[in-house]
């Protein structure tokens, strides 16, 4: 069997003609009618591409010689392929490698998923309680500025900034009365932000922020106190720190481990969203139980929190969505609060203090 093929010696970029013949152990080449060379079948390598031409290379003691043979597909090429063990296996080997890559990638994704959904939350709960309170406070201070700016258009206005205003004093009275029964890891720092959003949240280090609209929505001081006690529950359970470690761990795992693949950013956001709504239920219930306990010990009206939550949830409009996303209100939650309620002893604030607190942003 004979044919001709293109030959490049790897030294000069010139196409030469090789006359090819198949021998028992080797491919015989004669370049431009010159003397015959032997390419052992074992030494022939193939670039694995199925184009109109086969591109063959030769290896000598593990290294590429630089020679290239370009052969048209056809009977001769098939016969040559059949004789070279490394050629006939090349395509199959390539497929096997890719199957392995795919299989193990999927396996890695499954274990990554398990880590993200179960491992990181578990780790976050264990780690959060180990973070010293002073560290948590300095993290909270760093985060607070950013979050307050994000929450308000323009410079954030803190209504409770003046320590001697009546509203701030009323807020302090309420905070002190609840704190006395709360067994917190450290003192809490409660602020009121001038905002039309009806929400309240706790940041790391005992920083609790009330939005002005939530206070205005309340009909009694005990409703505000119920929410404050609930946020104190988050502080006591180190939920903000836990959330921070959790979110950081997840974005670190997904974002950087997988490189800057275009989809990774959105996947991080989506998975974080899924995770928060998934874990928030039990976290919120824990904080409710804490609030019920503190309100009962402080002699306040436990039921106020349940009624307030239900009322906020039923308000139509977009602004309540924010609260619902971070604090899902379910009938179970409200029912649990009502079941455990004990009769109130005395209101959390006097009528006068309550008025001052409601008007805290108008001072």
């Amino acid at each position, binding site marked *: 069997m004979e044919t001709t093929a*293109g030959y*490049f*010696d*790897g*030294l*000069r*970029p*010139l*196409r030469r003609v090789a006359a090819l013949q198949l021998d028992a152990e080797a491919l015989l080449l004669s370049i431009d009618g010159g003397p015959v060379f032997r390419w052992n079948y074992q030494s022939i390598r193939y*670039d694995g*591409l199925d*184009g109109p*031409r086969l*591109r063959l290379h030769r290896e000598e003691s593990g290294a590429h010689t*630089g*020679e*290239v043979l*370009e052969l048209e597909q056809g009977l001769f090429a098939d016969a040559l392929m059949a004789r070279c063990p490394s050629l006939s296996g090349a395509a199959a080997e390539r497929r096997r490698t*890719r199957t392995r*890559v*795919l299989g193990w*990638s*999927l396996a*890695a*994704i499954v274990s990554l998923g398990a880590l993200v959904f179960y491992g990181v939350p578990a780790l976050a709960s264990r780690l959060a309680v180990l973070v010293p309170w002073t*560290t948590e406070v*300095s*993290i909270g*201070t*760093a*985060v607070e*500025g950013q979050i307050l700016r994000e929450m308000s258009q323009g410079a954030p206005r803190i209504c409770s900034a003046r320590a001697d205003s009546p509203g701030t004093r009323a807020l302090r009275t309420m905070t002190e009365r609840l704190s006395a029964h709360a067994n917190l890891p450290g003192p809490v720092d409660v602020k009121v932000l001038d905002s039309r959003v009806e929400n309240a949240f706790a940041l790391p280090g005992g920083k609790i922020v009330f939005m002005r609209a939530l206070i205005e929505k309340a009909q009694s001081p005990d409703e505000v106190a119920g929410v404050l006690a609930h946020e104190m529950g988050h502080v006591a359970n180190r939920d903000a720190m836990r959330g921070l470690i959790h979110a*950081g761990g997840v974005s*670190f795992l997904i974002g*950087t*481990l*997988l*490189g*800057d*693949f*275009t*989809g*990774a950013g*959105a*996947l991080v956001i*989506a998975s974080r*969203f*899924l995770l928060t*709504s998934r874990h928030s239920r039990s976290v919120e219930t824990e904080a409710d139980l804490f609030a019920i306990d503190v309100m009962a010990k402080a002699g306040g009206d436990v039921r106020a929190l349940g009624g307030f939550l239900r009322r906020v*949830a039923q308000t139509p409009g977009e602004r309540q969505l924010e609260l*619902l*996303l971070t604090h*899902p*209100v*379910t009938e179970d939650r409200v029912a649990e609060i009502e079941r455990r309620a004990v009769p109130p002893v005395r209101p959390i604030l006097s009528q006068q203090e309550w008025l001052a607190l409601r008007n805290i942003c108008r001072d």
Partner: protein
Amino acid sequence: MQASAIASVPSVPATALETVAEPRQGEGMRVAASGSGLSALVWRGLFLTIVTLGIYRFWYRTDLRRWYWRSTAVAGDGFEYRGTPGELFIGFLIALAVTLPLYFAGALAALFIASEATTSLITLGGIILLVVLAQYGAYRARRFRMTRTVWRGVRLDQGGSAWRYARVSILWGLATLFSLGLTLPLFRRSIEGMKIANTRFGTASGRFSVPVGGLMLRWVPVWLVIVLTIIGAVALFIAAAAEPDGTPDQRAAAGFGFLLMLAGLAISCAAWPFYRAAEFRLFTNGSGLGPLSFVSDLKGRSLLGMYLIFGLVLAGLGMLALVLAAFVIGGFAALFTLSDGRIGYGMMIVAAVCYLGGLYLFMGLKELLLNRAFWRRATGSITVFGLDQIHDVMGAPVDGDNAAGEGLGDALDFGGV
């Protein structure tokens, strides 16, 4: 109408501007840029890339390159890409080792340093560091591709210093920023020049000499239209903000101004491909490689057609997606929202699938309608001269294995080539 107005912009005879630096000897050979089977490769490779959250991309990218290299031929001999997916993967790991500590340090600094000024200073420093690394990576990535490119059994190579490249490109980038884009051609000329002049084919070295005058003559009209449009839009916005309800005359003037801005925007968009084509011709005609010299006859309208097709296809698909979304979400919303109004898991999954599907379509169409189209038009526009002189060229051993792959260029994939 717009197109004809644009076509008259480069009305100076092309030959007057793009004089060939050296006399062409002998017969020229046109580069062949055509092949079949890319679509199947792209749709399959992208699917696997998305399913594996990106891990498969090293294999996909290698397949793409093998296809493009094989389908590009000079004088009947196709190029050969000898890089392997494993090399790209190792490069990615190296980049990870370099950038992970940086990301981690940045995150820690943001958390523990309470001072906002310090935090933003650290953020700024981090961004600068990443931009420098990205430029460094882009140059190294090209070196990687060159050392794995073979034509007629002889390897290409790229010398030069990647740090110098990073320094020059950042200085020119800043100059372009501060000159509001006026020096863009000089920026591009300088970085393209570094790449081409440092390219080697065996013992043959690259050279690059492109006259500044011709380049700026092409750019300044386009730049003026863009800058005037932006200035006009800002002025219009300020005037409208200052006087929300003006007299009928004022409103008519504003309306006319608005139309003028739209026209300016359309002209800017249509003029860009014409500039790109002229730039490509100038860069190609000014490049050489040992005995080889090149001439391109790329047409601006050919690139304009490419962008138009891509834009129309995207717009059509976007419209279709909106109609589908309206039907699907309208019909099934009840299934996916919970009784208390919250968004359920079902909706999240549908949204994720839609997002990934859209990403898949976009990336595939971009490869086929932009990247392949540009390769066909631009690479196929080149004629190579001096092929009868290349027997003097010797294959040279490539120094250094450069296993770093395209690591940094891959992990910091912005502004890469």
